[in-house]
């Protein structure tokens, strides 16, 4: 199984990348390429939906970490949502991604985004 990435863009500055399959050494470059194609000015909130991601290795983690740094350095934010147990286990072991960037559900993510919106308005 490889990786498929669906990119859903909205006109309110958010985009959502839905990952299905594996993010590993064979597919990390594909993810990198998709992320590089996102304009951080047009999409300051970049959400990576992991609900159908079945596997992540350190090559995949490196890509997620890089994507987060890229967004941050451009004044945008990259947030991860819905990691499945096997992916969450890997996140927990390597502690590569800050806990505040990973949301266990869309409800939790939406609450965070609402809070951010209120703070900025």
């Amino acid at each position, binding site marked *: 199984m490889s990786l498929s990435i669906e990119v859903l863009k909205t006109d309110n500055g958010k985009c959502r990348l839905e990952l299905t399959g594996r993010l*590993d*050494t*064979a597919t990390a470059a594909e993810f990198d390429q998709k992320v590089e194609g996102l304009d951080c000015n047009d999409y300051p909130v970049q959400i990576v939906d992991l609900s159908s991601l*079945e*596997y992540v*290795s*350190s*090559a995949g*983690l*490196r890509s997620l*970490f*890089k994507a987060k740094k890229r967004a941050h350095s451009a004044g945008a934010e990259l947030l991860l949502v819905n990691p499945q147990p*096997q992916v969450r286990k*890997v996140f927990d*072991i*390597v*502690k*590569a991604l800050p806990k505040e960037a990973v949301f266990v559900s869309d409800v939790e993510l939406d609450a965070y985004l609402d809070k951010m919106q209120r703070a900025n308005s």
Partner: protein
Amino acid sequence: MNRVFVLENDSSQVEPVLNDLEAHLKEEGFGSEIVHDLRLISEELLLNTVCYGYDDGVKDQLSVRVIREKGELVLEFRDQACAFNPLDAEDRDPECERLGGWGIPLLKELTDDIQYRREGKQNVLIVRKSA
């Protein structure tokens, strides 16, 4: 159950071997969690060896033997790369911003026992996991 998977020290050969290993473990009836963990461990170890274990131009053949033993699965990795004992690798500082270095923590956390020895020119790494 005793099966050997072989590949050359070429990173493009790692994924097909991982796919074969995963298919084999599933055929043998192992659950999704152990199959996931063993694929991940194998990816980390094989790629580390293939990418960092050799001087330029050196050719080698690596093997992964899968053995079922009294309630546990044993994976035996063999190669003739530079001597490398992952048990000697320092634990990664989680505060460090450097990318990577996550393979060893994954290996240690996802296995029940790890043994390393150097046999002549060979690295032999044996990992065990309850099954």
